[in-house]
Every structure is written in structure tokens, then in C-alpha cells.
């Protein structure tokens, strides 16, 4: 199970890398087309945003698998290793809970609005709305597995934008 979880995380990370590559290239191409050729790709901007939404949804699962979500560990560090282990498990269960609830709540929401077309590309909005249950489902699975198996986190707290 541990190996499967690691492989899945690695696979998802590669997918993220490709999605970001697509986003980067698309943005550069759109800028070049607009400023040098006075044209654009219809729906290009919308496509880029859709890809970005998927990177956030999938990225959340990879971050959990790598123990890199931003959290405050300073208070935990004064506790005994035994307490820390139990708190870590409890936290993973809580993360599984909120993400599981989100998956459950997403279903009726997507059923009610998912068939409406997106503003420019005119694809059903469900295609992009699905990113939420997919991402949250993956996070819930990882969190539940981590609550049971309790693998040691590689990094205690992530740092992103500073």
C-alpha cells in the first residue's frame, strides 16, 4: 500500500508538471499572438484557468502525500513523540473528513449545474467542476491511509510564497 501511494503521488506530480508546462506555453503563445499578430486563440484564457484549477485540486493530494501542506508545528514540537503521533493521526482523519464531505456535497451541485456550457469554450462546466471531487477524493484517500499507516512526514511544514 505504501509503495502504491508513493507511486500514485509521483505520477500525480508528473501530471502536475505537464499541466503547468501546458499553462506556461499557452500563456506565452497567447501573449505573442496578441501583441505580434493581433489575434488570439478563442477560449485559450479559459482553457488555461481550467488547467490551473486542476493543478490546485491534484496538487492538494500531492502536498498531503509529501507532508508539505502549510501548517504551524511550533506548538506540536513541545509535545512528546507519542502525543505528536496521535495528533498527526487525528489531523489526517480530520483532513479525510472535510474532503470526504466536500466530495459528497459536490455531487448534487455538479448534477444541478454541470451540464451548463462554459462561457467561451462551450464545454459542459461539469468537466472543470469535477476537479473538486477528484482532488478532494484523492486527498481523502491519502489522508485516510496516512491516518492508518502513519508514515513519517518528509517535511513538517511547507512554505510557498515568501
Amino acid at each position, binding site marked *: 500500500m505504501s509503495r502504491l501511494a508513493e507511486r500514485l503521488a509521483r505520477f500525480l506530480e508528473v501530471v502536475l*508538471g505537464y499541466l503547468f508546462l501546458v*499553462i506556461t506555453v499557452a500563456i506565452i503563445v497567447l501573449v505573442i499572438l496578441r501583441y505580434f499578430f493581433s489575434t488570439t486563440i478563442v477560449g485559450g484564457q479559459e482553457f488555461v484557468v481550467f488547467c490551473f484549477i486542476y493543478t490546485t485540486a491534484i496538487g*492538494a493530494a500531492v502536498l498531503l502525500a509529501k507532508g508539505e501542506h*502549510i501548517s*504551524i508545528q*511550533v506548538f506540536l514540537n513541545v509535545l512528546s513523540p507519542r502525543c505528536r503521533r496521535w495528533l498527526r493521526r487525528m*489531523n489526517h482523519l*480530520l483532513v479525510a473528513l472535510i474532503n470526504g464531505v466536500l466530495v459528497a456535497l459536490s455531487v448534487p451541485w455538479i448534477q444541478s449545474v454541470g451540464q451548463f456550457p462554459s462561457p467561451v469554450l462551450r464545454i459542459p462546466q461539469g468537466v472543470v467542476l469535477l476537479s473538486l471531487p477528484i482532488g478532494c477524493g484523492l486527498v481523502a484517500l491519502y489522508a485516510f491511509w496516512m491516518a492508518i499507516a502513519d508514515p513519517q512526514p518528509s517535511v513538517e511544514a511547507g512554505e*510557498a510564497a*515568501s
Partner: protein
Amino acid sequence: MIALLGGLAVLVVLGTPIAYALGLSALLYFVLYQPGLLLVVPQRVFSGMDTELMIALPLFMLMGAMMNQGGLTARLVDFSMLFVGRLRGGLGMVCVMASMIFGGISGSSVADAASIGAVLIPEMERRGYSREFAGGITVAASTMGMIIPPSIPMVIYAFVASESVGRLFLAGAIPGILIGLVQMSINAIISRRRRYPVEAVQLTAPAILSRLHKGVLPLLMPVFVVGSVVIGLTTATEAAGVGVLYAFAVGTLVFRGLKFGHVPPMLRSSILSSANVMVITAFSSLYTWILALERVPDQVSALLIGLDLPLWAILLALDAIILLVGFFVDVAPAIILLTPVFMPAMKALGVSPIQFGAILIVGMAIGLVTPPVGMCLNVTSTITKLDIVTIFRASIPFLIADIIVLLLVTYVPAVSLWLPALLME
């Protein structure tokens, strides 16, 4: 509200990832008080991810990483040496100046501390500076990384506050430069007292041209990125995209330190760092929706005005709150959480959202170099092999510069508002 705020505080203290602590406390609120509105939860979380502006975040990170891999740091050190190397404590001056320019390229204080520190700390030690001093000045100078434009936290603030990225970029320029100048002055005083050396810099025409040549290409990037956003030529996301293309071209063709093989890990690392912020943004969207529903920002605003205190006292308290939060909470979540709560109060008190953004970012920059969670401290600790308290103690004289500038930004609106008014009115 007790369920919401109390739940959040307890979960954060217990080490729950901040994004999910926000989600869980919001869920508790809905279950207890608004069960009929539960379907709002996925909608709000999704709307927090659905943004074009925040795509600039991973692009800026990728741009900085590419320039750095290309060999930026050594070139900036060489370039800065030309201007300040011959002053007393020359390497300390170079450290501050290179950090100022690096900040304009990477937009990240942590990258600044890691890159400049790795090159200059060993060199400073070799030239007779104490290791504590080298670590202290490096860590304090790195605070400019997130203030000088283009700044990643400014993009996050612009998104949360729905303000102009261009104006915010410009609002950070003068405070960032002021911090650098005050830090250089403090370095001059300490270096004279400790008799730190001046550097021998050749001032022959070929040597000057060579050093200038090394600095020009990196310097052009922030000028283009910020300039194109400010004059409205591109959006922040487009400017960041073009910045990535420029960094890739310069890194591979001119600097030649960047290889194709370096790019995939950079792509993964940048998008994961961005996802880390975006997950918090997504859940905070739910949280701020509840705050608005409960009229919390209005209540905070009424409370502050009702205190009948002079504006200077309220602003001083605001600075203290920002610094206190910065001690414990990372920059991105702090911006995401504090902005919606304090923004209406600031507007009611006549403080411009742009100035509030500058106050917030300068204050949070100080948090990056204070124990127990200062990320720049951790990075510098790894380089110097000194504990974070020792480095923090050594950085205190230089952090005075940050505090002085924080007070200037707080009490002299022109420090943050003059440049945006001049260039964007």
C-alpha cells in the same frame, strides 16, 4: 462565530494544515448554525480556485528559479561589487545590494536568503567577518525579496483585496529600497567599529564593462515585468509568462547554466508551491464568505472606530498585530486571513487599500526572519550551521531598518502611495 474562530484557532494550534483547519471550522459553523446552506461549501471552495490572476504565482516562482539556476547569484554579486565593494564592510554592502536586485527578480525572500547566503556567507567568513554577522545581514537583507517588485505576496494580496497588481508592485518599491539603504548604513556603522575590510575592485574600463554586462540582463527582467504591468501593456500573468520565456532564453543561451534537464523539477516545484497557497485560498474563500455573512469585518470596523482612539494608535496596534501574526503564521495564509478582516476598517479610517497592502507585506516580511517559524532563518541556519536564535540575534540591528520602514509606511502614506500615484494616475 465562536465555533468558527475557536475551531480555527484550536485546529491550527494542533497542527492541522491551515487550509483544512479553515474548511473544518467553516463546516462546523454550517452544521451548527446554517445547515440549509451546506451546498454553498463546494461552490465557495471552487470559486476560490477559479482565478486567472493567481496563475502569475507559479510563473513568477518558475521565472526566479530559472534565473537562479542560470547563474544569476554570482553575476549579481559581481555587479554589486562594482558599486559598493570598495566601501567599508564591502561584502556586507554587496549582500544587501544583491538582495535588493535578487528580490526584483525572484519575488521571494526565501530564495533570496538561500541563493545569496550560499555564495556570500562563506566568502564573508573567509574575509574575516564573523559567521553570526554574515548570517544576520543575509537573513535581514532577504526581507526585501518579498517587498521589492515583482513581489509574490503582493500578487496574493492583490487577489484577496481585488486591487491593482501594478499599483501594489509600485507601492513596494520605495519601502524596499529604503530598507536596503538603511541596512547599508547600519552595516557601515558596524563594519567601521569592527574594522571589516574593503574589497579590492578593479576600476579599469574593461573590468567595469564586464561587471556591468553581467548585471544588465538580469536587471532588465524586473524592469520589463513591472513596467509592462504598470503601463497596462500586459496583465501580471502575461508579464510573468513572458518573464519565464526571458529567463529561459537568458539562462540557456547567455548564462548557459540552465539546461533542459533542470526544467521539469522546477515546473513541479513551482506548481506545488503555488498549489500550497491556492488550497488555502480556496478554503479561505469559504471562510471569508461566512465572515461577510456574519458581518465580522463591519463589526471589527465599528469596534476600532468605537474605541475612539487616535488613528496613530490604531495603526500602531495594527502593526503590532501583523508582527505578532508574522511570528507564527506563514506569509500567504496571514495575508489571506488578515486582509478581509481588516480591510473595511482600514477603508473606514481613511487608509488606502494600497497602503494597507504595503503595511501588511513589510510587516509580514519581518515575520520571515523571526523565530520560531521564520523560513529565512531556517534556510540561513542550514548554510551557517548556527542555531536560529543566534542568527536572529545577529540580524536584530539590521531588522531595525525594517521596523523603521514599517513605521514610515504606516505613518507616511506617500512612502507607498507616491509612486503609484505618479506613474498610474
